[in-house]
């Protein structure tokens, strides 16, 4: 449950960052301070970097296999099965990763392993998962510092000091975070779109006379016009509502509205004078977004079924282009839905992105914090040869390893074009057209999962997106102009720790809010809406929401401190 809102945000960001079939990782010359910066010299990164000779992993390249559990039962693409990138890594280092997934619930599986002390050699686990504390406090994993000092001293200088600071617990680094983005990510690489944008079906837009849709009122009018011309079409499509899965917005599609109605939501939630971080439900603009949804409903523009749909039902309707305006991840819309709609129904019914909506005369603001990491790489005390594993991580972390895993061999799978790596045309085509085959054959995004920031591949990803998906690139550009850097606000990881009484209260608040959303949206009058809302606030206070808000303030301070901002 931890950091749900953040995860959503992260997902949206990665979405954009990793389009075009290339995993991009971000930026920053300092990040790879172990050698010449990749941006200054492209060839340095492509395999024969001078630093490579000194690295510890070269000392032993005899065959070696270690086991790894990956937290995520859906990740079958990550299992090592002779893919190009995996083979290349094995060829160079002698190492094979025997990666295992859970079937069914990952939490069940992980907790059983932890409780019984029966762990694999290494674990890939979201760095903000509650189990991380268990692993560390229980002494079940090595600290990276210990292993690096002992087996791979050169590795230390290759780690970004900011990253080490942010991710250290009790003064030590316990895992290597995958996908940690550095500061300049906001200005380099693929444009970030941190919300699920709303789209309009092209033919309907034309049929209603292609009006300007700049404000929330414009959208309301456009929907009314669409409803009049296409009475059988459902005017608005939103992703499923479930507060415990999607955060307090309820649906991942709501952020688009919330960021319009409450452009300063994150700042407004922090009340330094009272030492609390408010629940967003206390914010007027946040509630206005739901009021707007209620207006849509009362005008017959919102199908109440969306409140009970699961993901599958929404997907099915979207594949059938059954909505005039629909919300979806930028990347999903342009790489999955639109192509399918085009091939089964027709190009005229594909969707075009809407610009950010103004409300009350204000521009929207999208909180585009960079990603602090995804999965962390842990080495457990069960590992028979932790030295070999940390040395393998060193290889993966090096420019050489990053390029091997991302692009393969120069001249064989990629070429340098204008100083940036680019897949050979046939591979690029496979990546775009048949991602499953791309994964199965090359595994360029599935190998070590030790991705680190680097301007070289960031810029390559941005260029590839621009070239292969110009429509999506332009759409991303259109929306990313509303981005602001929310990193310094310290609003990440505000969810109270699972075992505390505040976590229980938080669960109750989530439950209450989950039940309240449908009532708000389906209110028949403003009075009813206000009653339902006031009732909710009363109930929320009764279960002790204030205690959680105090804890969230402490967590907010912790976050700032970790980032070195306070």
């Amino acid at each position, binding site marked *: 449950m931890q950091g749900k809102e953040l*995860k959503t945000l992260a*997902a*949206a960001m*990665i*979405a954009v960052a*990793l*389009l075009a*079939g*290339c*995993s991009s990782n971000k930026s920053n010359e300092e990040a790879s301070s172990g050698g010449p910066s990749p941006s200054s010299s492209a060839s340095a990164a492509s395999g024969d970097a001078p630093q490579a000779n000194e690295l510890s992993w070269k000392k032993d390249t005899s065959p070696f296999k270690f086991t790894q559990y990956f937290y*995520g*039962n*859906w*990740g*079958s*693409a*990550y299992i090592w099965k002779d893919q190009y990138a995996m083979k290349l890594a094995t060829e160079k280092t002698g190492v094979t990763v025997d990666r295992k*997934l*859970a*079937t*069914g619930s990952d939490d*069940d*599986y992980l*907790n*059983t392993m932890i*409780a*019984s002390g*029966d762990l694999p050699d290494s674990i890939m686990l979201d760095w903000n998962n509650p189990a991380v504390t268990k692993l560390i406090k229980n002494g079940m994993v090595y600290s990276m510092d210990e292993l690096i000092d002992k087996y791979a001293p050169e590795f230390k200088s290759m780690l970004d000091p900011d990253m080490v600071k942010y991710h250290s617990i009790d003064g030590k680094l316990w895992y290597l975070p995958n996908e940690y983005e550095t500061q300049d990510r906001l200005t380099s690489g693929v444009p970030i779109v941190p919300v699920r944008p709303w789209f309009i079906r092209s033919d309907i837009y034309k049929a209603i006379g292609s009006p300007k849709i700049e404000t929330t009122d414009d959208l309301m009018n456009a929907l009314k016009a669409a409803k009049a011309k296409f009475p059988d079409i459902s005017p608005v499509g939103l992703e499923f509502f479930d507060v415990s*899965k999607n955060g307090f917005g309820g649906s991942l599609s709501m952020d688009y509205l919330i960021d319009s109605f409450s452009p300063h939501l994150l700042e407004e939630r922090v009340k330094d004078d009272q030492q609390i971080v408010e629940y967003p439900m206390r914010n007027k603009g946040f509630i206005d977004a739901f009021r707007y949804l209620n207006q849509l409903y009362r005008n017959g523009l919102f199908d109440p079924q969306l409140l009970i749909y699961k*993901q*599958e039902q929404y*997907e*099915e*309707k979207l*594949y*059938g282009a059954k909505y005039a305006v629909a919300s979806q*991840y930028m*990347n*999903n819309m342009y790489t*999955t839905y639109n192509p*399918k709609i085009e*091939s*089964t*129904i027709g190009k005229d019914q594909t969707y075009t992105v809407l610009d950010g909506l103004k409300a009350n005369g204000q521009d929207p603001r999208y909180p585009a914090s960079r990603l602090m990491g995804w999965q962390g790489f842990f080495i457990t005390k069960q590992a028979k040869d932790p030295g070999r594993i940390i040395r393998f991580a060193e290889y993966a972390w090096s420019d050489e390893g990053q390029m091997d895993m991302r692009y393969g061999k120069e001249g064989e799978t990629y070429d340098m074009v204008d100083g940036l790596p680019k897949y050979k045309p046939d591979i690029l085509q496979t990546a775009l057209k048949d*991602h*499953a085959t791309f*994964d199965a054959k090359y595994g360029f*995004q*599935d190998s070590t999962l030790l991705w680190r920031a680097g301007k070289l591949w960031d810029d390559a990803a941005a260029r590839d997106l621009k070239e292969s998906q110009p429509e999506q690139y332009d759409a991303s550009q259109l929306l990313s102009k509303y981005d602001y850097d929310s990193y310094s606000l310290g609003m990440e990881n505000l969810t109270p720790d699972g075992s505390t009484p505040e976590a229980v209260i938080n669960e109750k608040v989530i439950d209450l809010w989950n039940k309240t959303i449908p009532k708000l949206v389906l209110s028949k009058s403003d009075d009813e809406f206000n009653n339902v809302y006031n009732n909710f606030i009363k109930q929320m206070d009764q279960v002790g929401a204030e205690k959680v808000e105090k804890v969230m303030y402490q967590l907010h301070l912790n976050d700032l401190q970790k980032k070195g901002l306070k």
Partner: protein
Amino acid sequence: MNITSRSWSSRGFDLLNVILLTALCIVTLYPFYNIVITSLNDPTDAARGGITLWPRVFSIDNYRIVFKDNQIVHAFFITVARTIVGTATAVLFTGAFAYGISKSELVGRRIFLMLAIVTMYFGGGIIPYYLLIAKYLHLKGDFLVYIIPNLFNVFNAIIMLTFFRTLPKDTEESAKIDGANDLRIFFRLVLPVSKPVLATIALYNAVSHWNAWYDAMLFGNDNLLTLQQILMQIISSNSNVSQLASQLGYGAVNSTSLKLATMVITTLPIVFTYPFIQKYFVQGVMIGSVKG
């Protein structure tokens, strides 16, 4: 039934019965039928939904993709092996217990039965169980982990017990007088006349072995992968997280029709066991032979 001449009311009932059961068949068959036709539809087109009576764009691509995975053949053999071995051993093991308990003279009968019944309601949870199997019995990664922990099932024991209690006592008693011991009576006399209940319990066991994936996940390894585990992996890839994965560009989200194809492949073999089991449900033949 087939002996008497039929009255009008009886015929009317027959007609009504046939209509009623036909309706029930349609209602129960349709979802399964829908699954089959959707799995035979082109995956891209199937995403639009609305396939009701026959495939809109016929294609066997889904099946081709599923069979491309060579794990599935291996998993098929593992699953068949555990189903056959597991069913045979469990029916015998549980049946022997149930037969013993069915004898009122057995010393400790009530204690044994209570011991068994209590376990229907109380358990220590997954962690101690895991430690027992993995740490103390060292069954993890061994094919026997599918067999030994499933040897006994309280519910099945109770069903068999109920059946054994209804068996006529006289044949057994006369066999005893002839000098046969309880083992011999159980195997030679009781089991042969218990075919309907044995068939039922065998079906229960076979289905639960076939559908099991949790033990395979906890205690198995790549060599012990079962069909249902593959199905679970494919079904669970629809979760939110996999959406995230597809966002990341890591692996595509599976289409509905592909999932359904996997489901058909992993379910059909077990579904077809029932018609075979049914032949042991022929009324009276067995009991008659006891009496006769």
